[in-house]
């Protein structure tokens, strides 16, 4: 039978595919929020420990990853009325194709890795890898600064997915620290985004190429 985690994760994979295709930032943000939620719920299902602390922690993570962080970005956009385009360097169709290839590749790779800890959940590793690479892709292939930030968040989600699912060693407190770091990072990025928009009244990173040799 197929594990509920895998169904969730398959949805995530789908969202990844969608994110490649979309040209609207709001859509992208929603996608990221969804991924965050799922990513933070997965360990709950895999469940190393069902202690109260665990639950509290999972909820907290869910709040931050799934709601606060996307909210920050959303507000950042709202505050500054800017074009909602992601301004791709690589075109949408090419991106979608890339996404398909990516998912296939990710699945293949994670078959090769055969990790003992999570062998029963087929889709965890592929999703993680997919999220990672997607994040990277957004960072490299989107000129819009906000899209890049979203890519960064996606990547973080991916790493989180990997991390939490593998390591029974890491205490929650530590993970929480990491989470706070990410949160703070995203917040500062949001501020920077606003400033960028103030100074250039655009968030196209093509404008940020003056410092060079």
């Amino acid at each position, binding site marked *: 039978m197929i594990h509920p985690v895998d169904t969730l994760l398959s949805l995530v994979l789908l969202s990844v595919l969608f994110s490649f295709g979309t040209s609207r930032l709001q859509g992208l943000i929603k996608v990221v929020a969804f991924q965050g939620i799922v990513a933070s719920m997965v360990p709950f299902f895999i469940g190393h420990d069902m202690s109260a602390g665990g639950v509290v922690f999972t909820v907290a993570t869910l709040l931050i990853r799934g709601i606060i962080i996307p909210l920050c970005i959303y507000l950042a956009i709202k505050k500054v009325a800017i074009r909602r385009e992601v301004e791709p360097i690589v075109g949408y169709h090419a991106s979608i194709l890339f996404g398909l290839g990516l998912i296939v590749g990710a699945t293949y790779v994670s078959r090769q890795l055969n990790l003992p800890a999570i062998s029963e959940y087929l889709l965890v590793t592929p999703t993680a890898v997919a999220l990672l690479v997607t994040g990277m892709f957004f960072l490299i292939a989107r000129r819009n600064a906000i899209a890049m930030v979203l890519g960064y968040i996606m990547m973080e989600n991916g*790493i989180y997915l990997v991390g939490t699912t593998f390591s*029974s060693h890491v205490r929650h407190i530590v993970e929480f620290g990491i989470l706070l*770091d990410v949160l703070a990072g995203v917040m500062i990025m949001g501020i920077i985004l606003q400033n960028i928009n103030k100074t250039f009244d655009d968030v196209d990173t093509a404008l940020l190429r003056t410092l060079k040799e």
Partner: protein
Amino acid sequence: MVEIIFLAPFVTGLLAFFLPKTIGRQLLVGTGAIHLILSLLLWKNRSVPIFENYFAVTPEGLLSLLVISLLFFLISIYTMAYLKETDLKSENIFTGSMLLFLSTMTMVTLSDHIMVMWIAIEATTLASAPLIYTYRTSASLEATWKYLLICSVGIAMALLGTVLITLAMDVGNVDAPLSFSALTGVAKDLDPMWLKAGFVFILVGYGTKMGLAPMHTWLPDAHSEAPSPASALLSGVLLNCAYLGIFKTHKIMHAAGLGDFSGTILIVFGLMSILAAATFILKQKEYKRMLAYSSIENMGIIAFGTGIGGLAAYGAVICMIHHSLIKSSLFLSSGNMLLGYKDRLIENTGNMASRMPKTFVAFFAGFAGISGFPPFGIFIGELFIIVGAFKTGHYVAAGIFILSMCFIFAGFANQVMKISFADFINKDDASTDPKKIADPAGTIPFKEKASLVWPQYILLLTSLILCFFIPDTLYQAIIEAVTAIGGGIK
């Protein structure tokens, strides 16, 4: 109660955000003093921390801690004078972030748990980002953006690396606390493949922060746009913190018998960094960027030495210490230059020898030191690294190393000669450029206050003294740190 060392500046930093300028400045210096005292005390008796599976007092950590607090104290003194000269809109943010920066860096030096170390290093990025954006110009904004994003991405890689190391534990099914010390103990049982993968990610991640080519790209922008005290901190201390992460991981690798693998990678990246530095120093137009690239060079040297091991590793640590001292002094001098010339371009500086003699002395001495002239310590370090490289039979690597050192020196010396002696007033285009008409006499509206030059002098003097006498405890610490990666005398 070791944690107090990074908690104290944390608290004061938070305070500083809400305090008025003047008090903030005093707070800065005061905290610096306290921090110095605390770390000296810690140096005297290495007390155990409360959360001992997160924090530990390691020799290499102690070394960088001492460097940090010394530098920060001097820099804070300089900063007080510097802030008087310049008017920042949001100075309390600046001071606050400085203090937070200090606390996070201290945390890095003390942290033993790999995740905590990651948290701390990421925190340094976040704390230092506002520093770079102090001047609120579009250029500084761009620099901050690049710094933040590149470093975050890089460090995310490092996080993945740490995760992979835990994975290596799972696969090798060992159960130990995720602390460097513990891992070094059980390194033998870790799964080599995942460990290697972990190292690769961590190296690239922290290497981004440390400024190893080709991940160095954020460094020159950030250093040139940040106000000079901040640049001094960034290049004097922050890079060392990142290096600490790599160093500790390299330690694990060495314990796991994979020292050659990680060593070779370090050597390659070191050489790449040195070459990159050579590329951009040769025709550099801004002096602060030049200094930044020279930091990249020195990080390369340190990585190179660490990778080679043996006597070279010893040399690398010496280089690290002295680079912090000298480079921060150079950046402080560059702050004076900015105050004096009001311009970052080398072509608009000149004849510092007679315009700002005190700064000139500091600057030129720093230059001599950084390019490996005695009586400054880097000479010793580089000597050891070179002979160590020959000892271990890395002839080609040593050849490239030396060659690119020559190029870098040629470029660096050329620029420094222009800054120190060349006279831009006499240039034929003097009439066209308003900036040059501004001071026809070549005199500059800037008085070299004692507090704007003495910090540099003290830093250089420290380096000079350390080149001759090295306190026993310090020596022991270095040896202890180096032997863990298969280094040491002989």
